[in-house]
């Protein structure tokens, strides 16, 4: 097992407001890691900082044993993919154009078409709606496009910000089914969720983010054993 991403002493925030305080963690190739924790404690900020959308104040990230260069586009081209919260689709484009945008930094046309086929197999709904504009889709369909667009870049690390946010339970199930299938490949995934119950079955390691720091971490077994700790944080 090799380390894919390693984060050391990462701090970041918005304007003058510091959100992340000295974050350290690592993710290995082929693993699924979940970052959980209450809202407003820096989960999205962490992903945005790693992806390069937010500037790093201090600390280092290295990806595939190389230090990460600045700028979101460069990081994306290196294979670091963020599926942002609220989907952030290209609303005026069709479903297929959105998906193709996901493959923007790829030049291997044949393999890209292969991935497109995989996305349509994973989300048959998108195949039906491939010419439809993104702003005419339902919330669940939009989420599918968001995740599919992330898949299209065929990156080594996919970071997914709250895939269940704002969706009906039935749709959430579908989305997590898909995530489970995604995990079977060799790519690593970081999933952010407020509540650990959804991710418990897919992730192998869990980090609890509280007040911009990791307050707890452990594997699936430890997670089920530490119910009380988590309840204190999440109010479950």
């Amino acid at each position, binding site marked *: 097992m090799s380390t894919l991403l390693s984060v050391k002493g990462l701090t970041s925030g918005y304007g003058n407001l510091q959100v992340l305080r000295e974050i350290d963690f690592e993710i290995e190739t082929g693993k699924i890691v979940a970052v959980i924790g209450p809202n407003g404690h820096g989960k999205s900020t962490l992903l945005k900082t790693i992806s*390069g959308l937010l500037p790093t104040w201090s600390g280092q990230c290295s990806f595939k044993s190389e230090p990460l260069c600045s700028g979101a586009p460069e990081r994306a081209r290196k294979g670091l*993919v963020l599926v942002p919260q609220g989907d952030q689709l290209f609303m005026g484009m069709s479903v297929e154009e959105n998906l193709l945008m996901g493959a923007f930094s790829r030049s291997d046309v044949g393999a890209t078409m292969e991935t497109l086929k995989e996305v349509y197999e994973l989300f048959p709904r998108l195949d039906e709606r491939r010419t439809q504009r993104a702003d005419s889709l339902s919330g669940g369909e939009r989420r599918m496009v968001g995740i599919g*667009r992330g898949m299209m870049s065929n990156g080594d690390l996919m970071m997914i910000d709250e895939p269940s946010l704002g969706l009906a339970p039935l749709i959430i199930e579908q989305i997590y089914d898909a995530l489970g299938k995604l995990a079977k490949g060799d790519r690593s995934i970081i999933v952010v969720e407020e509540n650990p119950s959804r991710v418990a079955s897919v992730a192998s390691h869990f980090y609890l983010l509280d007040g911009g720091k990791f307050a707890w971490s452990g594997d699936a077994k430890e997670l089920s054993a530490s119910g009380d700790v988590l309840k204190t944080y999440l109010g479950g």
Partner: protein
Amino acid sequence: MPKNSPHLVMFSKHISGGEEMDAILQIMITGLTLGSMYALASVGLALTFGTMGMFNMAHGLFMTIGAYGSYAAAELWGFPLPLALLVGLLAGGIVGAAMHIAIVSHMLHREDFTTTIMVATAGVAILLQDLILKQFGAYPFKQPVQVEGLMLIGNTAITYQSIAIVLFAGILIGTLGWLLTKTRFGLAIRATAMNQDAAKLMGVKTELTYLQVLVIAGVMAAAAGILISSLASLSPGMGANPLIRAFVICVVAGLGSVTGAGFTAISLGLMEAAIGYYFGVRYGFPVMLGLVIIVLIFRPAGLFGKQGVVRA
């Protein structure tokens, strides 16, 4: 300024007998010629606004620079016409790029970008206009880059220049449309326009996209400037008239809507030609502006604009 109005020249050349068919044909030709020039003048403006929320007050000067670039290449350096045309287009693109590198790129992250960039580009406009005035003088020149000759359909004369204008504008706008919708390059521009952060996450270097957009806008504006000057004349202030039309066209279309700007330009060109024909050339623009304001009272985001697309 009246001496720079292309349609003034066109009408004074061709007004002939009062036959209804001739009138319609005349209006169609004038309108299409005007419309295609307006379209060229406004698509760049719409593209810049749509992608970066930037209103470029120096857009009119891009036109002037294109026109003078061609003029200088043909008249002063003795280049053949196609090459002179190319020099003009290139000049527009270079000025667009220079403006981005020197000014716009440093301001993009400002909170009040929409308003401050207007002020900054107004400064660029007056600076460039003054430099052109110093270099070439205020005396209006004839644009050497044009096609001579005309043909007759019934009693209506159609200059080859009009045909060349419509063709050239059509080719340029068609190419832009193809670029925007069918290529990876265009996909990046559209993605940046729709969602800048998401575009970055896909690996689009948005800073570079903005530069490309200003170069495209510069080239399209330069083309418009060359065509317009071939009908009227070259003068340092020649960009003002088409710029105002481009403003109005972009407002009617809905700021940022590139396709909308193209269609609106053609319709407003036809309308202006008709009003000019029946009521007199000086009323063409005022009536158009009046109608525009009425349109906006009912559709505040423009005809093709959507409330969400318009950034203000």
